[in-house]
């Protein structure tokens, strides 16, 4: 008898045949990543959870359209990206998510030491200052670890655009977060 790990492609094949349990197992592998991606770009946990459910429902309904199971991750995040931007458009017609009130005050933590909660607020605020596109590029690269080619598929734009958004965002983040680094927060 030979044991081998059940890969996503195996689960996708079974789920395509109507095996809901196989799809549930697939969800359990990816739901945390999708949820955190959505939390970081939507900045709202309830919306992120609702959209996560929508993302997996759409994924199940369209699983047969996935040509290459090896590209499941970027395909799934493409659905998540579309859902998030659909929500942005519903909430704010111009497509730019609103910034939270009081973010300016939150980033100026001051004092000699930085507590984890302060660090979290500072990072969150620095991310809030980015445009939605820049923030999403940072989330996909830094937090989700996608390659530029995959990001290009998810965001439906050229690699050069992806890199431009990411590197501009990194310059802004570097400037915003340098006081924390100087104080030895990390």
């Amino acid at each position, binding site marked *: 008898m030979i044991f081998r790990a059940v890969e996503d492609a195996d689960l996708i094949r079974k789920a395509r045949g109507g095996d809901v349990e196989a799809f*549930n197992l697939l*969800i359990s592998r990816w*739901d945390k990543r999708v949820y955190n991606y959505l*939390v970081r770009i939507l900045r709202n946990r309830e919306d992120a*959870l609702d959209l996560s459910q929508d993302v997996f429902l759409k994924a199940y309904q369209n699983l047969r359209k996935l040509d290459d199971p090896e590209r499941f991750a970027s395909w799934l995040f493409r659905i998540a990206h579309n859902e998030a931007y659909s929500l942005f458009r519903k909430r704010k017609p111009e497509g730019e998510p609103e910034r939270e009130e009081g973010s300016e005050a939150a980033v100026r933590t001051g004092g000699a030491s930085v507590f984890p909660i302060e660090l979290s607020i500072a990072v969150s605020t620095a991310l809030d200052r980015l445009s939605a596109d820049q923030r999403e590029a940072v989330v996909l690269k*830094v937090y989700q670890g996608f390659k530029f080619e995959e990001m290009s598929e998810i965001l439906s734009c050229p690699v050069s655009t992806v890199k431009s958004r990411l*590197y501009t965002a*990194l310059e802004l*983040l570097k400037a915003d977060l340098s006081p924390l680094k100087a104080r030895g927060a*990390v």
Partner: protein
Amino acid sequence: MSCSPFDLRDYFFGELPEEHRRQADLHMKTCAGCREELEALRSTQAVLLSVPDEEIPQRIGFVSDRVYEPSVVRRWWGALWNSGPRLGFASAAMLSVSILFSATHRPAGSPADIARQVNEAVVKAVAESDARHLQETAKLIDAATQRFDERLAHDSEIMAKYNTLSYRAAAYGGGSQ
């Protein structure tokens, strides 16, 4: 400003081709400015990653709804029909089962049953033979009786003619004396 022959940020994210990465590695060993810039990128990434992923507050899962789901028979049939090897295997299995069934369920009686069936067949054959003989005998008797009656009628007719002739002869003979 980076003096690296390749984009330092691509190098940092591991997006350079292998050959370029090796050249960049060598450059980093000799260039303090690029090392500093690389360190700044690492620090920024470290600060960002210091805010870890959250646990999802509610696991996501789906329950199969039988209303929208194809029936078990349909799914089974679909799976079977769409698979040549499975269909061949099923045909062979059905054939084997039929052979086994016919071998084990062929109606074969006990010796007593067989003896009874033979006796019944013999009795039946004897009865049929007797009936046939009786029928033939009856036919022969009927034919003989018919022939006897015809003969009797013929004889009676001859006798009647003879009597008539005898009577006439007597009449003529008595008149001439």
